[in-house]
């Protein structure tokens, strides 16, 4: 029996449990948010009475982007919502409320989207928010192939799946942000250390004291329109020839030496 067949043979409760474990697992290991969202769309289709699913997430500027879709056709329908600025997902994202529309062939607030959706074979839609407390991250769109409303139990399950996926997304953002901040700190530390190392190199090569070495470094950076830390880094890395700097002697009045701060213990 294939894996797919195995999956289908599980009853819905067991599959629900497996799905939650699958999504929660992504929280402990290295993971790719797109993977999590793709799992969410495909499991939504398997678990719920939905024919297809798609996910939109807001980027840092607050614009919605298609992040996952169970089929190519759904990706196009999601894009259609964004481009025409109308559809259940946008309403869901803007209000944070679950949007259920059982029959798009009758009146709907989104005439262009409804027409496209019905044409694609999905007369019934539902959108649940991806949210963390008050923050709406995006939404999960479910598409049904018959004009029936998704049951209350299915909507509740869809929301629970969306909630778990939201935690994964938030965790991923926190990790990325922390990595950026760590990188900035390390970069600033390394740059600062490189300046001291470069001073030592120049002092040795030119047989001058550290203050003069620093003047040479600054002068070279200024004369060549380069940053001080960049020049220091290049010198330390060996990508800049020390003798091209050592020629930058004879500065006018020496600029003030960097303060050698006393250590602040206690």
């Amino acid at each position, binding site marked *: 029996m294939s894996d797919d067949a195995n999956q289908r043979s599980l009853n819905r409760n067991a599959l629900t449990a497996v799905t939650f474990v699958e999504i929660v697992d992504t929280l402990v290991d290295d993971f790719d948010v797109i993977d999590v969202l793709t799992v969410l769309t495909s499991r939504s289709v398997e678990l719920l009475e939905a024919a297809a699913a798609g996910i939109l997430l807001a980027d840092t500027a607050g614009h919605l982007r298609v992040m996952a879709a169970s089929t190519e056709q759904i990706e196009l329908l999601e894009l259609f919502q964004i481009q025409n600025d109308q559809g259940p997902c946008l309403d869901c994202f803007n209000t944070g409320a679950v949007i259920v529309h059982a029959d798009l062939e009758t009146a709907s607030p989104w005439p262009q989207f409804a027409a496209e959706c019905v044409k694609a074979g999905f007369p019934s839609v539902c959108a649940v928010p991806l949210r963390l407390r008050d923050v709406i991250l995006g939404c999960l769109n479910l598409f049904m192939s018959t004009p029936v409303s998704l049951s209350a139990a299915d909507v509740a399950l869809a929301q629970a799946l969306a909630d778990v996926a939201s935690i994964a997304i938030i965790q991923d953002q926190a990790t990325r942000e922390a990595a950026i901040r760590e990188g900035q700190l*390390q970069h*600033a530390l390394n740059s600062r*250390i490189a300046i001291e190392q470069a001073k030592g190199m120049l002092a040795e090569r030119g047989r001058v004291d550290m203050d003069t070495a620093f003047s040479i470094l600054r002068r070279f950076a200024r004369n060549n329109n380069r940053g001080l830390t960049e020049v220091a880094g290049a010198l330390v890395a060996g990508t800049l020839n*020390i003798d091209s700097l050592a020629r930058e002697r004879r500065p006018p009045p020496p600029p003030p030496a960097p303060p050698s701060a006393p250590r602040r213990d206690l």
Partner: protein
Amino acid sequence: MNADQSLRIAVAFAREAAKSPEARLCSACVDVLDVTGAGITIMGGGGGGHAGPICVSNPRMAALEDLQYAIGEGPCQDAFKSNMFVHAPRLDVAAATLWPSFVDLAHSTGVGAVFAYPLSANGAKIGVLTLYQDDAGELSATQHEDSIAMVEVLTETVLSLQDAAPVGTLAADLDDVVAYRAEIHQASGMVSVQLQLPVAEALLRIRAYAFADGRPLGVVAREIVTRRLRLADDRVDLPRDPKEGE
């Protein structure tokens, strides 16, 4: 972090508010965690080495933090490399096998137990909080839990200090970390030109010399910068009699 922990950490920070920000961190740790001493070290700066201690709660601990920086050995190093806390409740033979020089100095300065926690949050790893106890023995469960809560606060505090600095420059409070070690970095630059070595390798040579000579890295670095010492090329540097040191 539970409400009780947050409250105690907040009170300790508030109490220390009059002191300089980075020193506040160490004093707050000693206060909240009820230990003899604490040191915070920021890692970084080329080749995965230390940037150096950012603060220590008292001079005895400063010597131990410095030693770990100088020779790259000790619980602080291990905690950072493994990204897990390292508990040494007894500085016995087993500990001395792991960190011979560190345990030696700990004995002579009267430190009986050391506990190191990596400063990390959301996968970012920036340094280590090291706790020192005069008496041997494990931390209590509360001290351990509070320490884990504390490293979160410390990591966020250090990253926030840097967030506030102009892009590409080091926050003033963190700049002291480098300034304190300026001569070591300058000496590395000088030796790299003298011996035509990469700077990171030059630092290793200076460290090895200081260690073999039984003298603090900072003292050796100063001698190099003032041109009273020049490391020999092409052979093992023979230290003088260690008894002459200091």
